[in-house]
């Protein structure tokens, strides 16, 4: 029995541009929570700053709208304190690959059991269209009439280089697939990365729904090596593969590797009380 999707709605109107991919992404997120029977009080979403972050007060769950680039460590702190919650970090390509790239790499290698949604609209949209590392190399951008001088980098290469527990790519034009990917990411035990190719009709107008439709190819979930995943994950001029690109079910989560916590029956939030330190004090000489 899924939860009524209206339970996740706040009564505020969205502030995104008409045709923005965030409408569908938000809907897919709500649908995923609803279909997994995760109530609004069982989810905690860490929102970054950017157009995606402007959705923070448009969804009714526990949420924290924090600082630019920091949604991942914030989500990690939330998760480690109470693993019963479904913790999601929600951020854009600017936050993820620029301001907070270190957090992404360390979250993957630490394998915290959180889900990271990367809204990849190929630019900093909220500050009106600056280049990111996913912006097309030829494209003139804000303050860069002759396009950016830096090279474009492939997110799948960055993500797969750290051997993630779960990496999928979705598209904001396909709510049904995206919902399933978010559900699979939440259900995966470990750090789940979902890169979402996002329509941005205002600052990435070349990449229309038609442009995406010509390139997107849905792949099946299957056991792949990292090498196979790299091949299938790479975006080319002709094709963008979506679906679950890579899983590594062998990895233990960060918490499972905590020698002093792994068998704990309680969460850190349950344990705040006065502690008697006399025994520890007595160990001093």
């Amino acid at each position, binding site marked *: 029995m899924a939860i009524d999707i209206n339970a996740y709605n706040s009564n505020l109107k969205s502030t995104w541009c008409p045709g923005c991919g965030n409408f569908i992404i938000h809907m897919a997120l709500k649908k995923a929570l609803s279909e997994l029977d995760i109530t609004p009080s069982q989810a905690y979403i860490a929102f970054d700053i950017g157009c995606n972050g402007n959705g923070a*007060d448009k969804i009714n769950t526990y949420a924290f709208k924090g600082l630019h680039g920091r949604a991942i460590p914030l989500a990690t702190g939330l998760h480690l304190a109470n693993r019963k919650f479904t913790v999601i970090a929600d951020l854009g390509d600017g936050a993820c690959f620029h301001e907070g790239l270190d957090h992404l790499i360390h979250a993957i290698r630490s394998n915290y059991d959180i889900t990271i949604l990367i809204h990849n609209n190929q630019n900093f949209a909220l500050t009106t269209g600056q280049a990111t590392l996913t912006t097309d190399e030829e494209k003139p951008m804000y303050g860069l009439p002759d396009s950016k001088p830096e090279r474009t980098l492939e997110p799948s290469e960055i993500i797969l280089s750290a051997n993630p527990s779960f990496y999928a790519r979705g598209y904001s034009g396909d709510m049904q697939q995206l919902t399933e990917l978010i559900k699979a990411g939440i259900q995966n035990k470990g750090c789940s990365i979902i890169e979402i190719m996002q329509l941005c009709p205002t600052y990435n107008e070349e990449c229309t729904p038609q442009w995406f439709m010509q390139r997107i190819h849905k792949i099946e979930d299957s056991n792949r090596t990292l090498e196979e995943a790299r091949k299938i994950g790479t975006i080319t001029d002709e094709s963008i593969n979506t679906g679950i690109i890579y899983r590594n079910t062998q990895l233990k989560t960060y918490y499972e590797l905590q020698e002093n916590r792994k068998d704990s029956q309680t*969460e850190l939030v349950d344990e*705040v009380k006065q502690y008697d330190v006399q025994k*520890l004090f007595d160990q001093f000489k």
Partner: protein
Amino acid sequence: MPTNRYSIKLGGESGQGINTLGVLLSKAIKSIGYNIFSYREYPSLIKGGVASYQIDFSNIYIASSSKVCNILTILDPEAVHEYIKSLTQGGILLYDDSEVVFTPDEQAWITQNSIHVIYLDSSKIALEAGGSAIMSNIVMTSFVWRLLGLRQEDLTIVVKEIFECKGEDILNKNLACLNSGFNSSEFKEEYSQSIYIPKQDLEQNNNKKILTGNDAIALGAIASGVRAYYGYPMTPATSIFKYLGNTYKETGILIKQAESEITAVQMALGSMAMGTRALTATSGGGFDLMQETISCAGITETPLVIVLAQRVGAGTGVPTWTGSSDIHTAIKSGHGEFPKAVLCVSDIQSGYTLTQQAFNIAETYHIPVILLTEKQIAESLFTVEALPLNLPIQRNLNDGENRYTITSSGISPRWIPSFDKKPYLSSSDEHNEKSQSTENSEEIKQMSDKRIQKMTTLLNNLPEPVLYGNPDSQTVLVSCGSTKNPIIDAINQGMDIAYLHYEYLYPTKTQALLNLASTNKNLILVENNQTGELGKVLTEASSYQFKKKILKYDGRPFFLEDILNIQI
């Protein structure tokens, strides 16, 4: 020359085991009932450079170092030239390196000050006793013990305690070296005649412990229910991480070495938002990186506690030396206007208590709290008989309709996220009572007023600073942090002063200060920084201007004589 105190300095090359030796000797002297205070000077490198370890001891509580020492034990030729002139008249210079050559100036100084110079070939003694060359340190220690006129069996007990875990063979070799050093033929009765260590009631007090200031903060954190520690290495904060890490199986605390200070503080913020108690600690540079998060905690009204362990200098500064030049950084930290509290540790008791208080304040008022300490407190060894009583845990948890309800105290309801409670958004966007982002002028003003009101509510609940010493004295010193310790020691030496000590720096209580200022007393600001940072904070809060300031900013703490020499 201060009375009732005695001081031993060990000098050598950094990485030569000076610290291990210093801790051993500190424990041994403490074990026979003395109060010790041990202070380290060392360079920011792993091998080479000159380092020292000074142990001051007394039959009363002390928490400062003397500028001079009675015995100087040198393990490396370079250290001789660095430290020789810190010997007091009639003192003893003990060295074990045949390469030591005194300059003509040093030679003259030795004669002029009647210094006893003893060369002990400790490596040879160690090898002859069946030990290894590194055990020459034990030979030197036991020789010093003999000089002090103390009993061999008392040192033996401590050496056994320390080396027991290394196996019988190593223990026995160390004990053999101890025996040979103690009974060395180099010892002459005339040496001990120049030694007057303070008399000690031989009734031993085995309850006394020696702890560093960082140990006290770590213990305070454990006592107050901290369940996660997120850290990134930076001297002199790092040893909090070490203690909490080494005890994590006993405490169950989650320990995370984060990829940066920004990460550490964000994780702490997240864990506090989820409803546990989490700590992070750093020094100046790392604290700068944390400031955006402090501002975020301010507007989202999320409790947060950060330990800021100060060292001297801007930039990298002098990383292993002391100072208190981050008071302003702490108080002014974070962009925008929002309430926060800054507390300042000075010793074991305050480290233990204020850590608990920091969490109580952070959770009661939903604000960031910065707990200041200094290298001089963080890494020095203090003697303590017992820890203060634990503070009751105050969390101020209340269910409500909205997370940011406007109240007269400024404190809104806050409840721990739970499956059976109403979800809420903590927002770093300016927001209304319902957490909705707002750009409405009325709502911006209302929410800003609500938040800043918490400063007044908190200020009304904070204690005034404590006045120590003779309340009738004409001279009143004013300070905070480690400076308290040599001042209290000077008062115990009979110096006729009063001392106004600030533990709660911000928001700032001013009544006690203004009362003193309204008399014709001589108020002197004493600070371990260049610009009198506490003084400026007090002036901003009270309008009182200090006419006399004593400021020290050379990386050294205030020594006892620095205080005793103040003209009163």
